[in-house]
């Protein structure tokens, strides 16, 4: 599948944003975070920017962005519609939580309820995003049980890395946040390895033979494509990443998204304050960059069944 830049940025940014907001809500309610309003502004501000920027980036790939509101109407069947609705609903607790913490400096019952509702809606939104891909039967690399957990873990990981960096920049530190990030990095590395093993060792049920209904005649190969030029289908579904590059990019993901953050977080918890700040910030940047590469690969390695009609021998 063609890795559209806007979609890659959207899923990475909004995943990190929801992860950050979810952890902020949860840990605020537990009283683990510094209660200062300035810190609240940094955390919730960054989270909201990431989430909103992601949403805007995703509307930029629409053919008719001015009609985007219509996307909230089909929640009964469409994961994309559900995602849009969940994303909009999530703004309600985020707003109450934000106003309570940042503007009023309060931590009373309504604010705590909003703080706790934030992670719930954040998880629901990330889940809907992941389900959009997971439910697409023509794409073997997406339509499997490994996809949704990876989306959740990467959201928690990038959110935790950002929260950890902000904490260090604020002059504080939380062993709990660092621990969450470390666990998410380890889990993410394992889940991605499992996903790639799945992709490498299984094949889509569809073949050129089933796609043409000619199974009874033996092997089916494309002889002549229908047109000499390119078309929408080939551009959108026919992206091809060289095997060699895929291996290299997978390694980059394992290192940048998981290994470097993991090592730096352990380092940061042992190092004196100044180097610890650097370690925490670099860990966050590396984690986000690694996640961008992961998303790009998620698209680039996905093969749509329509490629079977254009000469692919397997999807």
């Amino acid at each position, binding site marked *: *599948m063609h890795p559209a830049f806007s979609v890659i940025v959207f899923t990475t940014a909004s995943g990190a944003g929801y992860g950050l907001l979810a952890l902020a809500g949860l840990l605020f309610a537990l009283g683990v975070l510094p209660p200062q309003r300035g810190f609240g502004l940094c955390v919730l501000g960054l989270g909201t920017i990431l989430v909103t920027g992601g949403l805007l980036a995703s509307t930029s*790939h*629409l*053919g*008719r*962005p001015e*009609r*985007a509101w*219509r*996307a*909230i*109407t*089909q929640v*009964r*069947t*469409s*994961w*994309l*519609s559900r995602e*849009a609705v969940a994303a909009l609903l999530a703004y309600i607790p985020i707003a109450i939580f934000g106003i309570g913490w940042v503007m009023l400096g309060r931590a009373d019952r309504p604010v705590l309820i909003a703080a706790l509702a934030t992670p719930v809606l954040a998880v629901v939104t990330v889940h809907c995003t992941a389900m*959009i891909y997971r*439910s*697409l*039967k*023509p*794409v073997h690399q997406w339509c499997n049980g490994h996809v949704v957990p990876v989306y959740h873990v990467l959201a928690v990981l990038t959110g935790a890395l950002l929260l950890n960096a902000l904490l260090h920049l604020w002059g504080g530190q939380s062993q709990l946040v660092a621990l969450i990030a470390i666990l998410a990095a380890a889990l993410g590395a394992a889940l991605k390895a499992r996903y790639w093993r799945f992709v490498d060792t299984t094949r889509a*049920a*569809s073949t*050129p033979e*089933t*796609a*043409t*209904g*000619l199974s*009874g*005649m*033996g*092997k*089916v*190969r*494309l*002889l*002549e*494509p*229908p*047109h000499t*030029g*390119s*078309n*929408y*289908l080939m551009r*959108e*579904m026919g992206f091809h990443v060289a095997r060699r590059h895929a291996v290299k990019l997978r390694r980059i993901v394992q290192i940048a998204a998981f290994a470097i953050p993991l090592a730096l977080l352990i380092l940061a918890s042992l190092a004196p304050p100044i180097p610890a700040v650097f370690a925490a910030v670099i860990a966050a940047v590396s984690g986000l960059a690694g996640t961008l590469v992961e998303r790009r690969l998620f698209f680039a390695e996905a093969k*749509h*069944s*329509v490629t079977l*009609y254009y000469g692919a021998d397997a999807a």
Partner: protein
Amino acid sequence: MTSYTPPAEGTRKLGLVIDLDTCVGCHACAVNCKEWNTSGHSAPLTDLAPYSRDASGVWFNRVHAFEAGSGEDSRTVHFPRSCLHCEEPACVSVCPTGASYKRAEDGIVLVNADTCIGCKLCSWACPYGAREFDEEDGVMKKCTLCVDKIYNENLPEEDRVPACVSTCPANARHFGDLGDPDSSVSRMVAERGGVELMPELGYKPVNRYLPPRPKKTGCGSGKSAALEPAFDPAAMHPALRWLDRILTR
């Protein structure tokens, strides 16, 4: 509506039956489809840079050619590909706006160009590549089964079939109600063992493809018949033989 009630037993399922035995790959169906539909229900079928080297445009029907089997037994199979008007069209259920819908009365799958936001998700959800995005209009386009032709009372009765069907010079395309087991298309499917494409994905396509008939080998008589000599001067009348000699000079 994006959500739809699966058609009850006996409801009409309009669709195409494509005969891969007789299709000669002439592309007439694709061309006539483009011609009719570029001013039809989902008009226009935009072409980008039409006179340049990288011309590219929206087509509802594309004719591929495959080679099936190997060695002496291999066959060239021309393969027209268009929307199969599936009974379980995920292209419809993934649509966030309700712009994609399946008509209850005849099963035709259409896009409402006035409400489509061009998110392209339906084209990802279609295994068959039947949906093509119109970059200029910003909306998704697809085969309409010539909904504006098959019910068109301004046309003579015999012309009320999809453009691809009426134009096919090899009579390889047939249109009818596949929900009615007694329709001519259903009987053709039963007789020839018509198949679904990618049944494993569960979209339950309505259109069917008739596989090529078994290849005949030899001349059909069973014996290898030697040709009669076309011309044997020795068996000719002497006068004719003389004439032949004169003429061949």
